[in-house]
Structures are given as structure tokens and as C-alpha cells.
């Protein structure tokens, strides 16, 4: 009412400024009432006010006014409408006729009771904009403010209802004793109004979605780790995910949507952040606090609009935008302690030496023992710290302990500010995280060699309403990573120190020597090493001492991506109601460089040792002055500009949308065009320097009737520069439909008591993939006209030409890899609070690019020829469940679970016609390994001799008793490649699941999440774990350490266990070559279940938080990867065969989250 008065006042002011006619003349047919009223305003100068809803959808009328007065005109015009009017001064006020009494008596709204309260959601966050309404009196009501508070005057005994979209409406009766309310609104699981984010950021009611889309509340992805991809496993039905390493900055999980659905080149999903294709790294660094929505699109209908790039599924993330209201500041700080989840158990040095001796004589009884009894006795003395013992002459080094700390600290800070008004909204966020590694540093050495990964992010999303129908969105983001870590031998950043430590003898040399008298003034660390007969002193000596490898330097990289995005949303209702247009331009620039600095360690060994005086002298081992191995005290920088990487990317998208409801019929349609380009700096030839481009036209049409029947058609029409003009564009249509049975009239109360909601849906269609191989262009050949096949002539070889190399042959027939996808789903709500979505699907992926294996080498081709030959079938089930229940206003409970099963098999595969059917790839699961079937160990040498021959290489050594006996599958009397077959489950799990429970009581909340995987195999790599032998990794020279499990249980003359954990020992790779073959002997069950996270939170009571001047403050303590149940015990099974890698981290974290 007050506003009306104010407007009236303004109107009067305005009217007094001009003189108008009091008569109206207007003649028009089929005109809207609104237009007539505007005309009246024009002619008379009277301001006309109307309740928009009342005249919005009125029918058209014919007007014929000839010098009529205002009153006459209004009477004529309004006579057919249930509208009335009053004239106050120079204003005409149109009202609904039903509101008989516009002047509500003052007495009736004078409150008896002032009700106050706060509304929160189940997480304890205050809710803004919640409707508080007196039941039966729609005039009395209010909404909660920014702090979730409301105040309302009502009559004693009135019933108020508290409602918000997506939440269960609650009602309360007000009386003198009950007028302060702390209300917790619970998510309405039955609510069909849940909004999903689908392709191109379209917000769609869950009810209307036909495709397969899983959306997760981003808060569920909040774990105490700085890598978002580590949180995906088990959270979203349809994602198969595993994490192969725990090293900060190098710990991205690998993830697949609905499993590995192709054996082609690219099997990873398309990642879209705010509509723009970005990398896994970009997703990994994204701050959960900045995410507004997180969806995965799983079937053809959902991904069709991405056509060419959607075949592997799509991950769709949008970032937050500001909301109208006062400025809100949200702050989060976390501090974590991180430690290895599981450390390797190694045998002690004495056992190591004894078994090394055993390993030597068991293969060659006459061989000289590597360790004398004297050495063993003295090492025992070292371990016992006996008087007269010397840990430098007779070392016993625990390398893992020497190199790695027990735990390390990690900090994360996140701050965001949002707010806005009708004109503009903003969301500005910044974050900082610092992850430290477990590597030790040395005080003698101020080179910072520990892993240290820092991430900074700045994000700003601003929405500006240029006009009532035009919105401009500006998104700016900067992501900056700085990594520092130990030198690695391969130039990648995944540390190999675990690997080096695991392949270094514990008793050969100490990590370093204290200075002897001769070296009293030496400035450098006197690192230990060795040389001698049978030793490996060579030019690679530098990597032999893991401690030196750790301390000698550091390598670092710096990476950043800066992006700017401009989006314009235009409502085109002036053309027709329901039409909107959006255009979006995104550009980003990525940059990366790396460098390293290291010194070259000085190595020493004990030259002479006087046992009586316990004095030793040192020999300097690397005095040479040339080669790789020259000792150097000072740091030298190593920087290779060819590792610099810059790329520039732009993306342009335009979209026309139409969405309108006609009675019971709702139709919508979209037409989208996109264009994107990436150019890279890291190029090696003309072809790789050319821009990578994509073009898309995509469209969507939907129809629904009465929220019961939904029909949807989508298509993507995509172009890529990689194929020949005939195949450049691919057309990928899909069709889908849904039926909400519970919205049918016949769905009576009896049924809805059981199933509150029941929906079935199905979709069928095609999606494509153009990223099918490493070749840049398939339709042109790639020839290196100056390199690769040189020849030199002349007396002194003075004339050389580099020759020509064919890298690829032209193949204009190569075309899109395509997936034909069928998806069936059932969604229902049962027991009021339990929501279930269950889906089954069958994908048929065809035209998978495959290298032709059937071309004999006699063709003499220089490069393989590929063709679109392969196909694969994926079948699977996704189930997502959630349950929410509030027992009363203080106590709520939530549970959720997801289950993903995906099995992909080769349907067709170009392969030779093997004589043995079991060698054929067809019908085998993708990722299933190939190897021998190990029966048991040979009983003795006689059995080994009399069994089918097992020699695996030129010059191979025949097996002995205690070596692995393989099955002669084809019965030809020899074990060779023809006896290998497919064994175990794939190395990517076929089942990933997770379930969690959270509960809140008053200010406390508690949640736990379990995650697991099943139907997965991995293979222990025998050439890397076998004790005493040399690892095949070129940078590792020492002899492999002895795992306790192998020390305890291996075949030996004394313990002829045919099923021992480890077969007969040996000291060279050649001796145990028989046992190093991939076989079922080394196959292990990779399944596990882990307590992934556990969290306890406490929200400060209002009294305290008000004192602290914060709106809300929550303290929480949580843990990550706390406990794992797995059949495999030697290391974390999620590492797979990669057991000597940086372990998966167990994290304990304390955090605070405050809203100001």
C-alpha cells in the first residue's frame, strides 16, 4: 500500500507538469487491454496503474471511443473484464473486481503477535527469500531476508506456512507461547521441481528431463584435498574413477563416464566449465565453493548437442553468480595433515643379505656369496648399535625413512564475496592452496626439493542488466599453479624417488658419510656409493644413491590459464513470447614453463677400515673430469625451451531458444551454433602448428503434455578439420521420451502412498567422436622431407643428406567414431523420502579407428595404416539413491548411494586369424590383460625339464624347480606367445560404488562416505618387485629391495611351497626371466572398500556468532581415505601395479567456514 501511495505521489507530481485533454478518441480492433490503457495514458496524461497479472493474459477487444470521458472510456473497456477502477487525482488505478474492498480496515491487519524466526536448510545455512504466509489470508505474508530471518505480525492462533521451491512446506500455529521459530526446511525429495543443468547450461526441471543426467550438490564434492577429481568416485552414478598417485599436483584421478566405452584413442569425457571445453587439470583445480552446479551427461539424448565430442559423456560445471541482496562474504580455511595411507613393508637388512645369499646359491651353487658372514655379523652389530660397530662401514639404511617424512601439512583458503541489486550482481572469489609433499629436506642443503604445489585462483562473475530484457555476463578467471619438487629422471614430475629407494640395497653404502680427517674442510655432503667387481659404478652412478637423488636439486613448473568470457542474454519477447537469444564469447591463454637446478653429488666409499681403532678412510669415487658424472658443488640450471607450452583458445557460441506453454502443451526449441579454435606453441612440424578447429550446429525440440508425456528430439551437426571434405561433417540425431506415470489422473492415492513419483524414460541416438587418433589430418600424408633416413658419403663422410620419412599415409576415408546409445531409466520416489534413479544402457561404439594388423610386413609400409574398423559394446547399470528425512526441527538424516556398473567388450577388432580362439580380442572386455596361466611352481628341476619348454627370449634360461609353471594352452609342447590368453578383470574397475550418511542434530552434523570398486584386476610387475634383480627402469641401477611378504613366503629348498607368494629367488633378470612374464601368478584382485571421508561439523549458536559479527560460522573436522578394506595388502590397491609410486594420502583436516 505504501508503495502505491508513493507511486501516486510521483504520478501527481508528473501530471501537474503537463496539461492533457480529458476526452479520449481511440478506435482499434483486436487490441490488448494493455495497449488501450497505455493509449488512455497518452491522451489524458493520467497515470494508469494495473496489477500486471490481471491484464497479462486477457483476451483482445475491439475499441471504438469518440470523445469519451475517462470514466466512460474505462467503463466501456473494462466491462468484459473482471476489473474495476478508481481515479485518485491524476491516477487511474485498475484493480481486480474480486477484491471487493480495497481499503482493508486498519484494525484487521494490526497484529496481535509478532512472530520472528530464522529459516535454514538441512546443512544449517540460512535461507533467503523463503515465503512466510498466513494460511487462508494471502494478504499477510513476508519473505526471509539475507540472513534468513523474518518478522511478521499475525493474529493469535493463525497458521503460518513456510515454503520454498524445492523444499517441503511446513506449517506452524502461532500463539503467545510459540512465536519464535527456528525452522529447518528439508529438501523435498518428491519435489518434481528439482532443476537439472543440461547441455549448454540449460536449466530444466528434473521432471521434464528425457536424457540421462546426474546432478550432484557441489557441496558433496568437498573433500579435504586440493584436487576435485579425487572426489568423483562413488559420488555420481555413471562415473568410473580411480586415483593412481598421491603426489600433490600429480594426483589427478582418471575417470570415465559409463566406463571405458571405446578402445580408440580418446576415452575421456568432455569437460565443460561455464560452457567452455577445458582440461582435466582445470577441473581438478576448480574450487568447490565456486561451483554452482555439477552435472554429468551420460546418454545420447543428453549429449547429442555436443555431437562430435560427446561420445564419451560430458561433465558440465557452472560457476556461481551473484544474487540480489546485500553483500555476502564467505570464508573458508582448512589445514590438513597428510600422510601415506599405507607404507611398504620391507624385510630388515639382515634378512635381505641372507636371502640375497640364498638367491645366489639357489641358482648357482658354486657362485661366490655376495655377503660374507663377517659382513652380516657386523651389520647386525650396526643395527644393535653395539660397541665397536660402525654404521658407515657396515651400513644398514632404511631408505624410505631416510627420504620421506611421516606426515606433511597442507593449507587451503577460500574467500568469496557476492551480492547485487536489480542492475547488477557479482560473485568474486579468490583461493589459495598450498600442498606439501612428504619428502625430507636437509639442513645442510638449502635447496628446496620437497614437493610443494601452490594454486591461486581469482574468479569474477558479474551480471549486468543492460535493459529489462538484456543481460550481460562477464566472467574472468585466472588459475595459477606453481610446482616445486625433486629432480626426476624422466622429466615428468611424478617423483621416482620411491622407485629408486625401492631399488637400492640397504647394506651397500650409507646415505652419506660424516667427514673423515681428510675431508674435514670439505663443503659438500659426502654421499655414499660403491664400485667394485660386479658393481654398477658407471656413468650413471649419480642416480644410485637415493638420498643424493633427493637432495641434489629441484625442478619446478609454473602454469597459468587466464580466461575471459562475455555472455549476452537477450529476451526476444518483443518478437514473440518465449524467444530468447544468447551469445557467448570465451577466450583463454594458457602458459607453462619448467626448469630445474641441480648440483652433481660427490660420492665416496670406504677405502680402508681399521677394525681395532674403528677408523676408516674415504675414497672419492667420481673424480673424472668428463662425462655426465662430473662432481659439482654448485647448482646448474637446466631449462629446455622446447618444454614451454603456450596455447590460445577461443570459443564462440550463439543460441536461439524458444520456450512456451500453450495450455496443457509445452513446446521448446533451441538452435545453437558454436565455433572453437585452439593453437599450440609446442609444435614440431607444419601440421601440428595448424589450428585445431570445430564447428557445430545443434538443435533441440521438445514437446510435453500436462507434465505427463515428454518428447524430445536433438541433433548435433559437427565439423572437424581433421577429416577429408567428404567426411568433415557428421550428423548425430537422438530421440527420447518420458512418461510421468504419477502425474496421470488414474494415479490415485493408494498408488501414491507407495510411489510418490514414478517416471520412465528412454532415449536412443547417435553421438560422435573426432578425436580418434594421434594423426593430425587423416586425409593428407605427413612426410618429413628432411630427416629420419640419412646417408653419408665421401672420404671423410663429408656429404650427408637427411633422407625422407613417411610418418603417415593419406587416408581420405577416415571418418567419425560413432556411438549408438540406448538408455532406459526408471525414476521413483518411495516411502516418501527415498528417491531412486535406475538406468540401464547399451552403447554400440563403431568406426573405432584401428591400425590394420593384417598388412604383412612384406608391404614395406613406413607407417601403419588405420581404418574405421573396430567396434565395442558397453552395457551397464547406474543407480543413484537418496533419502532425506527430518524427524523434527532439530534432527535430520540424509543418506545417499550410487552404484555404477559398466562392462565394455570388443565387438569387432581387426586382428590376425589366430589358430587359437582364446587369443582373439573379440568378445573380451576392454582393458583386460593378456598373459600366461600360471598353474603353480615347478616341484623340482626334473619336473621343469620334463614339462613343455618355457624359454622366453633369445638366450633365455630354462626354468628350475620353484619357478612358475605355465599352462600349455594349445598343447604344442612349448610355452610361447600362442599360450597367452586373456586373464582377470580389466584394469579399470567395472564397478564403482559409494554410499554415505549424514545427520544433523541441532548445531552438530556428522557425515561419513564410503567408496569402493570391484571387478578389477591389476598385475604386480615382477620385473620391478623381484628382490635383488635390477629394475628395467634405466635410471635405477641398484638391486631391488626385499618386500617382507616375499621374505616370509617364497619357494626355497627348505620351503618347497608350490603356491608360495614368490617363486624361487634369483639375482639377475635373466635367471628369473621365466617368472617375469605377465601371468595369473602376478594377477591380483584390485577391489576395495574405503572409508573415504568422515566429517563432524559444529555450527556456532546464533548468540556466539552474533557476538563475533558473523552470520554463520561452522567448524568442522574431517578425514580422507581413513581406512581401506581390501584383499590385497602389500600396498594401496588403488595404485594398481604401480606400487612403488607416491602413496595415496590419508588426510586429517580441520576447517572453518564463516559467512559474514
Amino acid at each position, binding site marked *: 500500500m505504501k508503495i502505491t501511495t508513493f507511486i501516486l505521489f510521483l504520478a501527481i507530481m508528473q501530471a501537474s507538469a503537463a496539461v492533457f485533454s480529458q476526452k479520449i478518441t481511440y478506435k482499434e480492433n483486436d487490441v490488448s487491454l494493455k495497449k488501450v490503457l497505455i493509449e488512455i495514458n497518452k491522451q489524458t496524461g493520467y497515470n494508469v496503474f494495473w496489477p500486471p497479472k490481471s491484464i497479462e493474459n486477457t483476451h483482445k477487444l475491439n475499441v471504438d471511443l469518440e470523445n469519451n470521458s475517462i470514466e466512460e472510456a474505462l467503463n466501456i473497456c473494462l466491462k468484459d473484464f473482471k476489473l474495476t477502477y478508481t481515479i485518485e487525482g491524476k491516477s487511474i488505478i485498475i484493480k481486480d473486481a474480486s477484491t471487493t474492498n480495497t481499503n482493508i480496515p486498519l484494525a484487521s491487519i494490526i497484529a496481535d503477535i509478532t512472530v520472528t524466526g530464522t529459516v535454514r536448510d538441512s546443512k544449517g545455512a540460512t535461507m533467503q527469500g523463503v515465503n512466510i504466509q498466513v494460511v487462508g489470508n494471502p494478504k499477510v505474508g513476508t519473505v526471509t531476508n539475507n540472513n534468513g530471518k523474518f518478522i511478521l505480525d499475525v493474529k493469535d492462533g493463525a497458521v503460518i506456512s513456510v515454503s520454498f521451491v524445492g523444499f517441503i512446506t511446513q506449517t506452524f500455529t502461532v500463539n503467545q507461547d510459540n512465536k519464535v521459530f527456528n525452522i529447518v526446511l528439508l529438501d523435498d525429495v518428491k519435489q518434481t521441481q528439482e532443476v537439472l543443468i543440461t547441455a549448454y547450461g540449460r536449466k530444466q526441471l528434473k521432471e521434464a528431463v528425457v536424457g540421462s543426467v546426474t546432478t550432484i550438490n557441489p557441496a558433496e564434492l568437498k573433500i579435504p584435498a586440493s584436487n576435485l577429481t579425487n572426489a568423483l568416485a562413488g559420488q555420481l552414478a555413471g562415473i568410473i574413477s580411480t586415483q593412481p598417485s598421491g603426489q600433490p599436483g600429480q594426483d589427478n584421478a582418471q575417470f570415465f563416464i559409463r566406463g571405458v566405452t571405446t578402445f580408440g584413442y580418446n576415452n575421456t569425457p568432455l569437460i565443460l566449465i561455464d560452457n567452455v571445453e577445458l582440461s582435466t587439470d582445470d577441473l581438478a583445480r576448480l574450487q568447490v565453493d565456486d561451483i554452482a552446479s555439477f552435472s554429468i551427461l551420460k546418454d545420447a539424448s543428453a549429449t547429442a548437442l555436443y555431437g562430435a565430442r560427446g561420445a564419451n559423456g560430458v561433465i558440465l560445471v557452472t560457476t556461481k553468480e551473484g544474487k540480489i541482496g546485500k553483500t555476502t562474504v564467505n570464508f573458508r580455511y582448512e589445514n590438513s595433515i597428510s600422510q601415506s595411507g599405507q607404507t611398504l613393508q620391507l624385510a630388515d637388512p639382515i634378512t635381505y643379505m641372507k636371502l640375497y645369499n640364498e638367491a645366489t646359491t639357489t641358482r648357482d651353487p658354486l657362485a661366490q656369496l655376495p655377503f660374507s658372514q663377517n659382513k652380516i655379523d657386523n651389520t647386525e652389530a650396526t643395527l644393535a648399535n653395539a660397541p665397536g660397530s660402525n654404521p658407515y662401514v657396515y651400513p644398514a639404511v632404511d631408505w624410505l625413512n631416510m627420504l620421506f617424512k611421516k606426515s606433511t601439512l597442507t593449507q587451503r583458503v577460500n574467500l568469496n564475496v557476492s551480492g547485487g541489486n536489480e542492475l547488477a550482481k557479482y560473485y568474486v572469489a579468490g583461493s589459495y592452496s598450498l600442498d606439501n609433499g612428504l619428502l625430507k629436506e636437509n639442513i645442510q642443503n638449502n635447496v628446496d626439493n620437497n614437493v610443494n604445489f601452490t594454486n591461486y585462483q581469482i574468479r569474477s562473475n558479474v551480471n549486468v542488466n543492460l535493459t529489462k530484457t538484456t543481460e550481460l555476463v562477464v566472467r574472468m578467471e585466472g588459475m595459477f599453479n606453481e610446482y616445486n619438487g625433486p629432480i626426476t629422471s624422466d622429466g615428468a614430475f611424478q617423483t621416482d624417488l620411491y622407485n629408486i629407494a625401492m631399488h637400492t640395497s640397504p647394506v651397500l653404502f650409507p646415505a652419506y658419510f660424516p667427514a673423515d680427517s681428510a675431508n674435514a674442510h670439505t663443503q659438500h655432503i659426502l654421499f655414499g656409493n660403491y664400485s*667394485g*667387481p*660386479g658393481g*654398477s659404478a*658407471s656413468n650413471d652412478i649419480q642416480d644410485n644413491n637415493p638420498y643424493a637423488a633427493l637432495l641434489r636439486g629441484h625442478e619446478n613448473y609454473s602454469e597459468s590459464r587466464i580466461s575471459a568470457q562475455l555472455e549476452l542474454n537477450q529476451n526476444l519477447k518483443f518478437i514473440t513470447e518465449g524467444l530468447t537469444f544468447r551469445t557467448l564469447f570465451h577466450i583463454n591463454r594458457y602458459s607453462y614453463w619448467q626448469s630445474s637446478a641441480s648440483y652433481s653429488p660427490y660420492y665416496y666409499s670406504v677405502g680402508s677400515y681399521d677394525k681395532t681403532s674403528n677408523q676408516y678412510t674415504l675414497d672419492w669415487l667420481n673424480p*673424472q673430469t668428463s662425462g655426465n658424472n662430473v662432481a659439482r658443488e654448485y647448482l646448474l640450471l637446466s631449462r629446455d625451451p622446447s618444454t614451454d607450452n603456450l596455447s590460445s583458445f577461443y570459443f564462440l557460441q550463439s543460441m536461439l531458444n524458444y520456450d512456451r506453454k500453450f495450455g496443457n502443451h509445452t513446446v521448446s526449441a533451441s538452435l545453437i551454433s558454436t*565455433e572453437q579454435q585452439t593453437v599450440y606453441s609446442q609444435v614440431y612440424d*607444419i601440421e601440428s602448428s*595448424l*589450428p585445431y*578447429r570445430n*564447428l557445430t*550446429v545443434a538443435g533441440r525440440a521438445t514437446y510435453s503434455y500436462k507434465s505427463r508425456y515428454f518428447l524430445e528430439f536433438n541433433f548435433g551437426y559437427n*565439423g572437424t*578439420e581433421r577429416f577429408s*571434405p567428404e567426411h*568433415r561433417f557428421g*550428423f548425430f540425431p537422438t530421440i527420447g521420451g518420458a512418461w510421468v506415470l504419477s502425474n496421470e489422473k488414474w494415479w490415485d492415492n493408494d498408488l501414491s502412498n507407495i510411489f510418490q513419483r514414478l517416471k520412465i524414460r528412454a532415449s536412443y541416438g547417435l553421438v560422435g567422436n573426432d578425436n580418434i587418433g594421434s594423426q593430425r*589430418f587423416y586425409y*593428407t600424408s605427413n612426410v*618429413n*622431407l*628432411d630427416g629420419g*633416413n*640419412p*646417408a*653419408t*658419403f*665421401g*672420404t671423410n*663422410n*663429408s*656429404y*650427408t*643428406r*637427411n*633422407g*625422407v620419412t*613417411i610418418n603417415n*599415409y*593419406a587416408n581420405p576415408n577416415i571418418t567419425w567414431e560413432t556411438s549408438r546409445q540406448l538408455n532406459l531409466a526408471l525414476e521413483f520416489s518411495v516411502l516418501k523420502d527415498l528417491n531412486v534413479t535406475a538406468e540401464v544402457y547399451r552403447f554400440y561404439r563403431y568406426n573405432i579407428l584401428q591400425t590394420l*594388423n*593384417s*598388412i*604383412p*610386413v*612384406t*608391404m*614395406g*609400409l*613406413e607407417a601403419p595404416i588405420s581404418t574405421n574398423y573396430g567396434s565395442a559394446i558397453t552395457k551397464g547399470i547406474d543407480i543413484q539413491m537418496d533419502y532425506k528425512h527430518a524427524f523434527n526441527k532439530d534432527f535430520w538424516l540424509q543418506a545417499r548411494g550410487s552404484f555404477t556398473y559398466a562392462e565394455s567388450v570388443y565387438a569387432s577388432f581387426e586382428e*590376425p586369424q589366430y*589358430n587359437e580362439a582364446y587369443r582373439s580380442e573379440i568378445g573380451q572386455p576392454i582393458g583386460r590383460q593378456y598373459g600366461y596361466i600360471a598353474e603353480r611352481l615347478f616341484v623340482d628341476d626334473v619336473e621343469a625339464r620334463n614339462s613343455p619348454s618355457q*624359454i622366453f*627370449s*633369445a*638366450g633365455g634360461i630354462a626354468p628350475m624347480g620353484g619357478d612358475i609353471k605355465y599352462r600349455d594352452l594349445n598343447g604344442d609342447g612349448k610355452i*610361447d606367445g*600362442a599360450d597367452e590368453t586373456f586373464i582377470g578383470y580389466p584394469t579399470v574397475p567395472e564397478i564403482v560404488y559409494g554410499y554415505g550418511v549424514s545427520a544433523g542434530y541441532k548445531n552438530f552434523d556428522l557425515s561419513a562416505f564410503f567408496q569402493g570398486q570391484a571387478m578389477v584386476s591389476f598385475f604386480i610387475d615382477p620385473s620391478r618387485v623381484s628382490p635383488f634383480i635390477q629394475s628395467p627402469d634405466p635410471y635405477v641401477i641398484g638391486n631391488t629391495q626385499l618386500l617382507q611378504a616375499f621374505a616370509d613366503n617364497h619357494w626355497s629348498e627348505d620351503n618347497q611351497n608350490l603356491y608360495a607368494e614368490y617363486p624361487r629367488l634369483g639375482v639377475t633378470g*635373466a635367471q628369473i626371466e621365466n617368472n617375469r612374464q605377465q601371468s595369473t601368478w602376478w594377477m591380483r584382485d584390485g577391489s576395495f572398500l574405503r572409508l573415504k571421508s568422515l566429517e563432524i561439523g559444529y555450527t556456532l549458536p546464533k548468540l556466539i556468532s552474533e557476538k563475533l559479527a558473523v552470520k554463520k560460522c561452522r567448524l568442522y573436522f574431517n578425514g580422507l581415505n581413513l581406512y581401506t578394506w581390501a584383499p590385497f595388502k602389500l600396498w594401496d590397491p588403488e595404485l594398481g601395479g604401480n606400487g612403488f609410486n607416491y602413496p595415496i594420502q590419508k588426510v586429517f583436516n580441520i576447517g572453518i567456514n564463516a559467512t559474514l
Partner: protein
Amino acid sequence: MKKYKSLLLALLLFSGLSCKKYLDVVPDGTGTLDYAFRNRNEAENYLFTCYATLQQLYDPTTNAGFTGSAEIIYPNNLTQHPISEIGFDLVRGSQNSANPGLDYWDGINGGEDMWRSIRRCNTMLANINEPVDLTAAEKQRWIGETKFLKAYYHYYLLRLYGPIPIVDTNLDITASTAQVRVSRVPVDSVFNYISNLLDQAAADLPPTITNQAQELGRITSVIALSVKAEVLATQASPLFNGNPDYAGVKNKNGQLLFSSTYDPTKWQKAAAAAKAAIDACAAAGLKLYTFNAPGTIGTLPDSLVKVLTIQNAVTEKWDQNAELIWALNPVFPVQGYATPRLTQLSAVNIFSNPSTFAVPINTAELFYTDKGVPLNEDNTFDYANRYGLRVGDAASQFYVAKGYTTINEHFNREPRFYANIAFDGGIWFGNGKTTISDMYHVEARGNSALAGPHDLNTLNITGYWPKKLVNYLSVYDDGFVPIDFHLPVMRLAGLYLLYAEASNEANGPTADAISYIDMVRARAGLGGVISSWATYSNNPSKPSTKEGLRAIIHQERRIELCFEAQSGWDLRRWKEMQTVLSSPQQGWHIYETDPGNYYQPTNALIPVFGIKNYLWPIQDNNLIIDPNLVQNAYW
């Protein structure tokens, strides 16, 4: 559908993009194979591409002729693997069909990809008319070179695999499965194809290289004719000429792949070809090499000149070596493996040189006595007491260190023994010392000796080094400074012996045949065959029969071409490899210091060689991919 698509395209165009252009990112001028033949300059580059594989054959460690006969053996228990050991392992019986060693069919495990090389030659020949600025004369020469290479690559496969498919023209990459599944061709057809191609090549090629500074190493007609002689001799040799072992080997369609009967006319052709090659060599000015001491060295005793003549026939600079028919441009890469440690510094700095090529006693005993007959035939030599100790004296001071104790059989040997073999107590002229008053000798007994075993990776497991493979000017002291040389693929002495062999096989022991053997012997300081045998052999009439002379020629060839990557091929074609590898390969007790203990023959390697090993197995996988291919016999 088409309508919709055009509608969509129209929409795309409407959106302001010319989509066709947008996606057409490949600019004109992006290199394709056509550019390789646009002009002479580019085409020359492609010619060199054809040569590239040939030059990769320089590495003896992947040459079955070098590693396959146990002339040199290599330990297989080292912890470091600086060279490819696959070839050396083959004599241990490691060959297999699943993953063959020195697989030149697939280009793996030490082998080069010969089929790929043949395809390049065919591409060259198919496009040779494209370059606009190529003169007719040059075009003719390039055609000749390419045809030679194509023939040689076929020949290389033939020696290893016997009957092979002939790829005369390239199949298109879109060829059908049926077309690409080629079959093997009878071995005589392959020989004839190669010999015919070599004839064509020889006709197009120049006899000598005029611009040596820039072109030395390019193929000449002399090379083509010499290779043809070897090809035809191989065809006539027992392995391929009526070999009963291969009588039943046939293609899947029943076609026999080997001739079942011995054909003596093949030797006639071989002899004629060898004669033609010898004539061509003579016309080109080639002659047997003799050492002329450079001014810096001064006058040397005749005994040392003979040694250096023989050594340098291999290690002399190739433009100075009048005997050299053909060598490859990359230099001999493994001199350091053939050199014993002679100096204090070399023994300290064990990293710089592995010194691991070990010559077994069998090979060392192959060399004649100074009477020019085999050790066990020499009626002046106490064969039974050959391992008896003897101290070096003044008479043999240029061969054995004076006063140093060694054994009887290291004395009174032909100069080729001293040129080829370094042994405990043997004189090593060179290595930085080039005066006769101060010469190195080898000390190899026990690990305190300079050349003795110091550690696992730098030891010689027999006590003999292949001295011929080291230039006498190479210096191994504090580090290894080699004087490079090019290991001959063919030299005149070998061609002479090839002619003698073919002639003897074709016509029996004629004076003509023996005269060519005697030329080689004379250069080595030995008397003629007839007189040497008549005087000193306990089998004086041996040269008078075809079989006797054959044995003499075979041993002569093994001696003359020892360590030159020939015996592995010769012993195969003669079908003598199985005999040679039937006894253990022995060395001395290398860890012993006392000569009495040291000179005890001890097994260093037990070879394994079956009849199947005469030819290589085709990798199993190839037989699965191409069902028309049949495996070699016994694999």
C-alpha cells in the same frame, strides 16, 4: 536428410562463417611425397633414403656373418649392455620363431626393416622421371644405384631366409587383403631375379668414383659385379644347391621352394661372374694391399711389415686401400671391444673401454703354422705338445715378448696369426709406440695383469683379442682414441678366394684356381699351396683332389677373412656351421696368474646349432597375418 543438411549448412553460412574455409586449415605447400621428386635436389635426398638402410648394416654386432660363427664370443652375464648382444647370443641356441633375433624381415631385435627399404627403392624407381632438372646421365646412375640396393636388400633377406617373396613393384596402400598376402618364391627364382637386377645395375653404374671427397661409398659397377659373384656362389653352394634337407619344403600350393638336385652349372656361372668381377677390379686399378711404413715410423723388420700389411688391409684409410672393393661409410664402431689393456692408465680407467670381444681357441688354432699348413698337418710341429710352455726368444721377438712365458702354439705361426690375434705374451705394435725397441705386449694372466679380468663388465673370457679389428695407431691409454676405419664388405683377397672356390667346384683343382689362392698366400708371407703341402703336410697330396682343395680353400678363406663378418655367411652356405659349432668354444683360465695354470683350455661357451639354424625362422605372427607364407624347415 540431404535437405536438412543443406538447410543446416545454409544456417551455418548465415551465421557469418564460411564453414568450408574455416575447417580447411591445411595450407598449400604442406609436404607430401610428391615434393620429394620435384627437382634433382630433393630427389637426391630420396636416393640417400634408399641408401639409409644399407649404411645401417655397418654395425657388426647385428651382422649374422660376424656374430653367428663363434669366431668372436661375448659373455652373456654382464650387468651392463652397451652393445646389442642378440647376435652373439644366437650361437647359444637362442633363436626362436616367436621373437627371432636379428630379424631383418620385421626390422626388430637388431635387424633392419628390409621390406621397407625395398619399398623405398621401388618408390624411387617409380618416380625417377619426375625431377625436371635431372640429367639423363645422372638419372641412369641413380637408377643403377637404386636397382643395386633393391637387389642387395633382397639378397640380404635371401641369405637369411632362403626363398622369399619378390617385391618388384610396390602394392598400393589400398590393395586388397588377397593382394597383400604374398607367397614365397622358389629360391632359384630369387637368385636369378637378384643377379639379373645386378646386371642391369652394373650396366648403369660408373666403374669408379671420381669425386671421392663427396661420393666415396656410392655404388660402382665393380661393386655390383663383385656382389653378383658372391650371389651366384651362394646360389651354387650346398645350402641352396640341391640341399636334401630342404627337399620337401614347398608353398601351400605345392610349389617346391628349393631345387632338389645339385646343379654343377651353377658353379660355372659363379666362376664366370667371379672372373668378370676380378677383371673389372683390375681394370679399376684394384690390387692386393701391402704396408708401406710412413716416414714417421722408419724401417721395420719384415716380420712386422707382414703383420701390418695384413692388419692394414682391413684398417687402412679406405681411400688409401687399393684392395678395398666396397665398404660402408659409417666407421667400424667397436674397436674398443677388440683392444686389450696395455698401459697402466688404461687398466686404471676401466670405464672407457670394455675390451670384451673374446676369440676362442678354435679360431686361434685355425691359422696356419709359418709353413703355410694347418697346425695338425704340419710335420714340423709338435701338435700334441702345443700347450707346452715356452719362453719368448730373440728369433720371435717381433711376435712374442722376449723372456715372457707363453705356449708352443704361439710360436712359429704364419704372420696372419700375429696380425689377427692378440694373446698373452703377444707383441702389440702400435698403441702409441711405433719403434721396435719399445713395443707393448699383452699381459693377460690373472686380475692383476693389465689386460687380465678386472671386473665383470670389462673382461675377456678367453684370453684372445681380435687384433685385426684395431688400427695399430689407435691408442688405449687414459681413455680410448681410435683411428677410424671402414670394415670391408668385400675386398680383393676375398674375391680371389671366391673365384678359386667356384673354379675348383666347377672344374676341379686347376692351376688357375690355385694361382689365385697363392696370390693371397704370398701376400701373407706363405709359400704356394702345392709346395707347402708337398713339403710340410702330413697329407701332401691334399691339393690334388677337388675335396682336398675345397678344404684348403675353405680354411684359407676363414683365415684370410677372419673377423670380417664373412665366416658366418660362408659356413652357412657351405653347410659347415653345424660341424664348427659342435665343439665347445674354449679359452684359458683367465683368473690364473701362473702360466701353468693359465694355459688350461676351459669351456667359455657351449654352442647350440641345429640343422634348423641354417636359415632364420619367420616370426610366427607373420605367418598368421599372411597365411600364404610358409615357415622355414624345422622351425
